[in-house]
C-alpha cells in the first residue's frame, strides 16, 4: 500500500531530487563531458506506510563544454548550443530519502544527439573512430607539442569531433584531453602519475589545424604521503584513445560519449520499459 504523490515538476522537492540525480549521474560518468539539468519531465513520489519516500524521476540533461576531468564546477560550465550539435541525455532515476538525505538507488539513461535541427552548413558530429578526423587530431597535437617546452603531451581521450562542409572540404572542429607523456623515439606513453598535467585542447582547421587552443586543468589535490609509508600503486592511465567496445557501439558507430546507461542493482522495477527500448537509439 503506497501513496503516490505527484509534486509539481518545478517544486522545490522535485528540483532537489533532480539536482541530486544530476550530480550523481555526472559522478558516474568517466568519459566525455558533464551534463546539466535542462528539464524535469516527470516525478512521482511513493510514500510507504513507514513514511519512507521513493522518488521516481524523469529528467532531461544537456551536454556542457566541461569535460568530466575538468575541475570547473558544473554551475560554471556552459551548455553546448544546438547549432554545435547538442547532445542530450534522458534519464529515469530512482532515489530514496533516508534520514532526510536523498540517495540515488537506480538509474537508466539514453544519450542522443539532437538531429532535428541539422541544417546545411551546420557542423555534424563525427564518429569517435573517424580516421581522417583522428589524423587531424594527431596533427593538431603535434602543433601544440611543438610549442611547449620540456613537456610532451599525448592524447588521453578524444572528446568530440565534428566537421562542417565548406568550400575547400570538411572543416574539422575537434576536442581532446591531453596528458603529460614520456616519449622515447617516436612512441609516447601517458605518464602514470596522478600529478601528471592534463588539459583539454580544441583545434579547428581543414587538413591542418590553423588553431589549437589547450586549457590545462589545475593539478589534482593529492593527500599528503609519508615518505616511509607504503602507497598503493596509482591506477593505470587509460589508453591513449578510449576504445568503446560495447556491442552497441560496434553496431552503430559511436558519435559521442554516452552517459552510463543502466544501474539498477536491486532491480527496482521502477524504471520505465520505454527507456529500455529507446536505449538502442544512438
Amino acid at each position, binding site marked *: 500500500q503506497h*501513496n*503516490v*504523490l*505527484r*509534486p*509539481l*515538476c*518545478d*517544486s522545490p*522537492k*522535485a528540483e532537489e531530487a533532480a539536482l541530486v540525480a544530476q550530480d550523481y549521474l555526472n559522478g558516474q560518468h568517466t568519459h566525455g563531458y558533464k551534463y*546539466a*539539468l*535542462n*528539464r*524535469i*519531465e*516527470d*516525478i512521482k513520489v511513493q510514500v510507504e506506510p513507514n513514511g519512507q519516500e521513493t522518488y521516481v524521476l524523469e529528467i*532531461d540533461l*544537456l551536454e556542457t563544454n566541461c569535460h568530466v576531468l575538468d575541475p570547473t564546477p558544473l554551475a560554471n560550465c556552459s*551548455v553546448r548550443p*544546438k547549432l554545435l550539435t*547538442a547532445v542530450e541525455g534522458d534519464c529515469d532515476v530512482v532515489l530514496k530519502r533516508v534520514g532526510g538525505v536523498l540517495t540515488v538507488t537506480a538509474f537508466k539513461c539514453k544519450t542522443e544527439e539532437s538531429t532535428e535541427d541539422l541544417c546545411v552548413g551546420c557542423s555534424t558530429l563525427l564518429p569517435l573512430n573517424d580516421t581522417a578526423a583522428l589524423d587531424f587530431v594527431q596533427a593538431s597535437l603535434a602543433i601544440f607539442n611543438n610549442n611547449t617546452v620540456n613537456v610532451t603531451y599525448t592524447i588521453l581521450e578524444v572528446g568530440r569531433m565534428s566537421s562542417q562542409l565548406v568550400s575547400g572540404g570538411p572543416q574539422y572542429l575537434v576536442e581532446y584531453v591531453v596528458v603529460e607523456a614520456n616519449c622515447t623515439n617516436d612512441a609516447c606513453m601517458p605518464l602514470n602519475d596522478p600529478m601528471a598535467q592534463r588539459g583539454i585542447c580544441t583545434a579547428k582547421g581543414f587538413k591542418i589545424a590553423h588553431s589549437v587552443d589547450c586549457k590545462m586543468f589545475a593539478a589534482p589535490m593529492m593527500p599528503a604521503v609519508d615518505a616511509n609509508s607504503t602507497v598503493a600503486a596509482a591506477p593505470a592511465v587509460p589508453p591513449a584513445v578510449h576504445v568503446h567496445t560495447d556491442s552497441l557501439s560496434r553496431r552503430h558507430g559511436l558519435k559521442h560519449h554516452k552517459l552510463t546507461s543502466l544501474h539498477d542493482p536491486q532491480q527496482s522495477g521502477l524504471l520505465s520499459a520505454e527507456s529500455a527500448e529507446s536505449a538502442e537509439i544512438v
Partner: protein
Amino acid sequence: IMFKRDIAAAAAPAVADSPAALTDPILLVPVCPGRVRFFS
C-alpha cells in the same frame, strides 16, 4: 480586424502533493513537465 483582448489568467492547480490529489480531479491537472532551462 482582429483585436487582442486580455484573458484572465488560468487558476493554477493546487499543488498535487497530498493523497487527496489521487481523488480530486482538479488536482489531476498535469503539472509536468517543468520549465526548460536551456532549450527544448
